[in-house]
């Protein structure tokens, strides 16, 4: 077997490597990214121009489409981390992410502003506001998690509750006021820290990725959530408590929501409950799907999900560049979803395999001989 494999590789190294690449889960987001990059290269190479300018405060800042993409994709990438885990363990998606961000953002402003909607100075240190926001978001995450894990409600239905109520809760937290923070240091987290040319959300997203990479490396979270997602009963027999694992994934998503919500309010130093992070849950779920992860749970690839998030922002920014109407952007995303869903359907996969065998009958036969 190994011999024949080697033979195949030596005989046709390009095809062999290609086959391996296609089987890799990273293939889908990479291919999508490549298509977008090629399209932009052909249509207008200036898309990739990055320039170093002076900001209005006199500090150097990088600007260009690519910077815009990695900047705006930050929240999406952070949320994709949590959504991947939730998807893996519970076999469903949390659709309350956008509403939960409204709550998280509202909490941040409530702590910083107190009851005064136009404070001249902050009522609490920013770090305190952030910690409170993380705790509140994790509680709401746990609420979703309990409904899913212990009451065995379909994730989409369970999170529909918060999806519907979240924005009203967010408005209620700030007494229906729209607070505005004039303190410039609060804006650093969503824009630029003076003197650093890259937008801060990029660093926050990178920190989240490092943290999740360490967690996945040094804990059994990956193994546990995958086994619970594949078969909760057998993992239970093997000593894993599926309910706790599901609950933990929802709480982690809650923490991701808190970070994303914090960035969102920092970007504008204010909030608009009914439109902040509107429909972001769909983009996040799309990122997970684009990463080639099965939306029915089980095995997952975190890198692919995060890459999916950047691909989606790449697509959005590309569409903005070509002056596509903002209303129509969701239609383009829908096309991507259709292609993905069709490609991952078992029937289509089977047909594709048959087609591959017809074109390259050699590979299968040789293996049989060996």
């Amino acid at each position: 077997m190994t011999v024949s494999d080697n033979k195949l590789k030596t005989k046709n190294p390009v095809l062999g490597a290609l086959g391996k690449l296609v089987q890799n889960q990273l293939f889908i987001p990479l291919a999508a990214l490549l298509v977008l990059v090629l399209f932009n290269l052909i249509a207008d190479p200036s898309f990739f121009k990055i320039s170093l300018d002076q900001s209005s405060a006199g500090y150097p800042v990088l600007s260009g489409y690519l910077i815009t993409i990695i900047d705006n994709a930050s929240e999406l990438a952070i949320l994709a981390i949590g959504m991947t885990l939730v998807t893996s363990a519970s076999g469903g998606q949390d659709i309350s992410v956008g509403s939960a961000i409204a709550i998280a953002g509202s909490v941040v402003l409530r702590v910083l502003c107190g009851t005064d909607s136009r404070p001249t100075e902050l009522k609490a240190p920013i770090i305190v506001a952030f910690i409170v926001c993380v705790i509140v978001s994790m509680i709401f995450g746990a609420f979703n998690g309990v409904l899913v894990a212990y009451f065995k409600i379909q994730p989409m239905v369970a999170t529909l509750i918060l999806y519907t109520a979240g924005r009203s809760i967010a408005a209620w937290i700030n007494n229906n006021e729209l607070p505005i923070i004039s303190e410039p240091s609060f804006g650093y987290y969503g824009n630029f820290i003076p003197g650093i040319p890259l937008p801060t959300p990029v660093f926050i997203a990178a920190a989240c990725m490092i943290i999740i990479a360490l967690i996945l490396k040094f804990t059994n979270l990956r193994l546990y959530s995958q086994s619970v997602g594949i078969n909760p009963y057998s993992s239970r027999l093997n000593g894993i408590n599926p309910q706790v694992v599901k609950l933990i994934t929802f709480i982690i998503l809650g923490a991701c929501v808190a970070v994303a919500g914090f960035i969102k309010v920092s970007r504008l130093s204010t909030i608009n409950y009914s439109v902040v992070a509107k429909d972001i849950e769909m983009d996040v779920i799309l990122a997970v799907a684009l990463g080639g992860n099965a939306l029915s749970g089980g095995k997952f690839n975190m890198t692919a999900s995060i890459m999916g998030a950047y691909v989606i922002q790449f697509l959005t920014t590309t569409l903005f560049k070509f002056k596509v109407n903002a209303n129509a952007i969701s239609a383009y995303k829908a096309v991507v979803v259709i292609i993905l869903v069709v490609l991952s359907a078992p029937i289509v996969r089977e047909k594709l395999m048959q087609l591959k065998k017809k074109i390259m009958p050699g590979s299968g036969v040789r293996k049989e001989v060996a």
Partner: protein
Amino acid sequence: MKKFAKIVLAGALAASMALAGCACAAGGGAKSDLIKVGIINNDPNESGYRTANDRDMKNTFTEANGYQASFAYSLKNDEQIAAAQKFIQDEVDYLLISAAGTSGWDGVLQQAQAAGIKVILFDRTIDADESLYEASIVSDMAAEGQKAVDWLASQGLSEYNVIHIQGVMGSSAQIGRTGALNDMVNANANWNLVEEQTAEWNAETAQQIVQSVIDRGDKFNVIYAENDDMAKGAVQALDKANISHGVGKDVIVIGFDCNKWALEELLAGNWNYDGQCNPFQASYIDNIIKNGATQKVVIMDEKGFDAATITQADVDQYGI
């Protein structure tokens, strides 16, 4: 276990129905001299305008003023129509509507007329026969847009390269404010639209749109945002890219709605113009209900503020 769950569920259902029954009974048993009004509005969290509008409604239609008011909120036309049908079933005396969209209201207004319910439109007009409603108290969005565009024209720039950020497409605010600008652009060779895009009243989307224009390297000197939130998002993108804006600077910033914070931006010279959209219709409606309508369409008084002439007194009086 399953049986128990069923009993609990049945109990919950029965309790909720009983509660609903109570609510109805309470509604029916209230003092009959109160005027029952059903108010259909957009989500009060949509914008500062709506928050002020909703607060004004709640302060006016109180029991002390002789009203028994019920409220329904939605940004979607179909949900609003469903709410109107519910109010008709509840036999309100007046139906006050701020429609999310301009079309699709004929059927439900005919039902209201058949049930003897008087309809008063506020803030937004709809495409329906005038006989179907008592009066409509509106802002003239086209006039607001015209005022802003006239002001812009009076600035005497040699060339107008405008980024036009639109509200939710099809809303009367969008149609009115867009119309005035588009007429001007079509009529004058030195007026160009660098970008015309809807941000659906959303500051973040507006920021992305302006960011995209900046990244593309297109030249522009005017931002015409159809509300304050979107103007704020646009300005955020300008700040990021070190493009100066405001009085005597590179880019003229125009917003609408006169939020207090926006007027303060004007006062500080960071923005140039803000068009008022008067959210206080409740007193007009109160007057019509108590004294009868004298005209079909009541157009409210509205102002436009220029950063060069605005005063702190204006901010305090007109900021919402």
